[in-house]
């Protein structure tokens, strides 16, 4: 992995803590994601990875801690405002809109740019029409990039699982986010589809997108990540370059001590 | 003193309606806890209770001691049927669809009652005579005493049911985690039907008890049911003690408000309280924050 010229940290998480009832899902978690790099967030099941993503995107309110993105503090912001800052995400269990078409799903990914004036929408102003055309083109391009063009008019619920995973990716990617949070993008995919996603991730990284990747598939993590953060039981137990982390005895113990799934 | 007697009068009247609201509120809570929906047919269970009691007492000239349990059992059966025929077969688990289904079923029940018993108000004989008793200077209808007795008895039975019987525990398990309940072998669909039957019994009992002192019409349950719902929200939707607290509180507030402010707007009070609670503290007096 060559060192990127711009090694600045675009996301700084520190002291992130979240309890559910009495249970600590996250305890003083901190890490850094560098601009234009892929930072992987790994750890056994229940380590708090998705909770971390949920806090970053405003779905959950952390009890303590700070998350600074590009100089902006994220804690306390509602999800739609965080999205408008240029942060997009995918969901582990897929949250597509099954009754909307594939194209409409991707267009929803552009909600932040679609304007939010009801009046403008009711009157269908020329500005809105112009914007709609532009958004539609961007959506079609994204469908093309993710190999879903042929199924643009299909209801999203009718897609095969692999296609759904890629649709979820396309929807997150289409808005040209500065930070893309992927929650287990290859879970349940076969090796061929996994490689397809890996190619897309590398493509996005080349395009300058900063990615935070939550994954269990160690091969994928090792092959695409610049930086790896390891969580276990809500705490950060290791952080560093992929090769170093994989040899870290603490990390091995965390994984061997529990049942973990690797592709 | 006159004004103390008035006050006491309002309190008795408020507690009486409050007990009814509490029972309806528990009925709402039971279905909400096991199925996650607001069951609109609950309001018709109340009307049906009154109707079946009327049918038993006047139509079949049964003695009250037979007519009342028969009415309650009848509504319980109706509740089970509603779930079995109406909801079980729904292809969609979408909450919006289920709510609309209960609305449709509610219309059917109401329409059926209207056809069978007509649109006009009916007079249901009270359980034990109409001469008011005097208590501490205020008058108390004997029916009100029956309402208190039955409500207390019902609450006691429900507490025993939910704590000590397998059926009750099964219901609590399904309410808490239907997937886990299914995994450990509980027949979730059966529990749901049972909870509808229980909701029916509660609504039917409330209707059978209150309609001798309120008027009985095919749609009497709508207003009562709405207030029962407001009581449930006030106390904390889905909470058993909340339903009781909410019911009694609502009854008292309504009665005192109607007595001291204006009786024409009595029905508005329940709705205003409903809105106020939703605005300020949606989880109600006894509910936990963060739940909906």
């Amino acid at each position, binding site marked *: 992995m060559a060192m990127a010229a711009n090694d600045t940290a675009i996301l700084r998480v520190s002291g992130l803590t979240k309890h559910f009832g009495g249970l600590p899902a996250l305890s003083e978690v901190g890490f850094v994601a560098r601009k234009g790099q892929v930072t992987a967030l790994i750890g056994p099941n229940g380590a708090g990875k998705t909770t971390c993503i949920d806090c970053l995107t405003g*779905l959950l309110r952390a009890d303590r801690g700070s998350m600074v993105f590009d100089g902006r503090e994220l804690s306390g912001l*509602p*999800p*739609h405002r965080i*999205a*408008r800052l240029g942060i*997009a995400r995918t969901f582990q269990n897929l*949250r597509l*809109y*099954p009754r*909307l*078409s594939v194209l*409409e799903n991707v*267009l*929803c*990914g552009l909600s*932040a*740019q*679609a304007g*939010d004036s*009801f009046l403008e*929408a*009711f*009157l*269908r102003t020329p500005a*809105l029409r112009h914007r709609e055309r532009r958004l539609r083109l961007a959506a*079609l391009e994204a469908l093309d990039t993710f190999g879903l063009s*042929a199924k*643009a*008019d*299909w209801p999203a619920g*009718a897609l095969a699982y692999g296609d759904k995973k890629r649709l979820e990716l396309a929807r997150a990617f289409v808005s040209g986010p500065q930070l893309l949070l992927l929650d287990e993008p290859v879970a349940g995919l076969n090796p061929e589809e996994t490689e397809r996603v890996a190619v897309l991730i590398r493509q996005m990284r080349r395009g300058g997108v900063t990615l935070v990747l939550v994954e269990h598939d160690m091969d994928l993590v090792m092959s695409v990540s610049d930086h790896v953060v390891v969580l276990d039981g809500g705490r950060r137990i290791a952080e560093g370059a992929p090769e170093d982390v994989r040899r870290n005895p603490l990390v091995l113990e965390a994984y061997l001590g529990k049942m973990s799934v690797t592709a | 003193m006159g004004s103390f007697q008035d006050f006491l009068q309002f309190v008795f009247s408020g507690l009486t309606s409050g007990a009814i609201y509490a029972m309806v509120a528990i009925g709402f809570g039971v279905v909400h806890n096991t199925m996650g*929906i*607001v069951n609109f047919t609950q309001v018709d269970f109340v009307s049906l209770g009154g109707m079946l009691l009327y049918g038993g007492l006047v139509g079949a000239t049964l003695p009250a001691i037979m007519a009342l349990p028969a009415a309650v059992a009848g509504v319980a059966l109706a509740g089970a049927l509603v779930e079995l025929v109406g909801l079980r*077969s*729904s292809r*969609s688990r979408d*909450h*919006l669809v289920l*709510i609309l*289904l209960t*609305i*449709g*079923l509610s*219309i*059917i029940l109401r*329409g059926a009652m209207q*056809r069978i018993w007509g649109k006009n108000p009916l007079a249901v004989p009270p359980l034990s005579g109409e001469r008011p008793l005097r208590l501490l200077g205020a008058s108390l209808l004997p029916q009100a005493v029956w309402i208190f007795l039955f409500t207390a008895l019902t609450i006691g039975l429900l507490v025993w049911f939910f704590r000590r019987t397998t059926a009750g525990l099964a219901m609590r398990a399904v309410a808490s985690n239907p997937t886990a309940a299914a995994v450990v072998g509980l027949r979730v669909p059966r529990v749901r039907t049972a909870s509808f039957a229980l909701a029916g019994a509660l609504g039917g009992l409330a209707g059978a008890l209150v309609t001798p002192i309120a008027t009985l019409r095919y749609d009497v349950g*709508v*207003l009562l049911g*709405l207030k029962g719902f407001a009581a449930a*929200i006030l106390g904390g939707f889905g909470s058993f003690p909340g339903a009781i607290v909410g019911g009694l509180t609502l009854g008292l507030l309504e009665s005192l408000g109607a007595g001291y402010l204006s009786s024409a707007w009595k*029905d508005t009070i*329940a*709705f205003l309280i*409903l*809105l106020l609670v*939703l*605005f300020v503290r949606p989880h109600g007096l006894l509910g936990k924050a963060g739940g*909906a």
Partner: protein
Amino acid sequence: MTAQRAAAFAERHHTGLAVVGLSLALALVPLFLANPWKLGVLNLIGVHAVIALGLNLFVGYAGQISLGHAAFFGLGAYGSAILTTAFAMPPLAAMVLTAVGVALTALLLGVPTLRLTGHYLAMATLGFNIVVHNLFVQWDRVTGGPSGLTGIPPFSVLGVAFPGEVRAYYLLWGAVMIALTLCLNLVRSGVGRGLAALAEDEVSAAAMGVNVRRGKIVVFTVSAVFASVAGSLFAHYLGTITPDTFGIFASIDLLLMVVIGGMGSLWGSLAGAAFITVLPHLLGPLEAYKEIIHGLILVGILLVLPRGLVADMAGLARVRLARGWSALTGRPA
């Protein structure tokens, strides 16, 4: 203009062309239909259609539920009636003022209740309907009580009045076409997509940047305003209004129109409004069972085609059309 160019134009502007086509067809109807009673039924369908369109935005698109829209309908009717009779206000001004009042009422009702799940909104709107209906019946000094208000003048704008069935037809169906155009515009915009997204999955929609709370509140208010305008036009059309028209059964009828037509299908709302308005006349001897039949229809549709008749069939047609189109033209979308 070659056939290919014409086809491309038609495809790009298919919505606008459909609206224009329907408008032309509707404009011609009174020329062929002289029977005032039949026109009257059509006019009533028009009133219901305006409400159903607004309600569909809220229930069908945004996936919420309201059992109280007859209250907004009634407020529009009584508002306009009172302002034009007791205060001799011109009908258009009265309609606008009433609509503003209704919008504020909807905001006041929606802000606290739309925060929570649909069940609470359903009951709150039901309660709202009961209270408003009570208001119409009890406040007889202002509303005329159970016998309602009479002597409401026909609608007029700048001296042009709309008395009689034929003129009312053009006024009402003109309103329907305007409402339909506004709604179609909304659903084809980013805001409209946001509503559809939040109906499917609020969490996901918020993560995409949709302001869920604001969307719900605005669409609720918009649907209330549609109902209010329909109410105003209704009051001027009939000249007489009574509280009975605005009770909870009416609210359920309105919901039924949306469900039958298809939740989310605007064209379907027109069909739904037509069906429910005409149904009592079709029932004949069964009219006494009207409520039960309504309930059975609602339950039947929900059990078999949860998304409603028109929407489900249109949805299936859309997929088949899309695949067929790709096969024909060799183009993907």
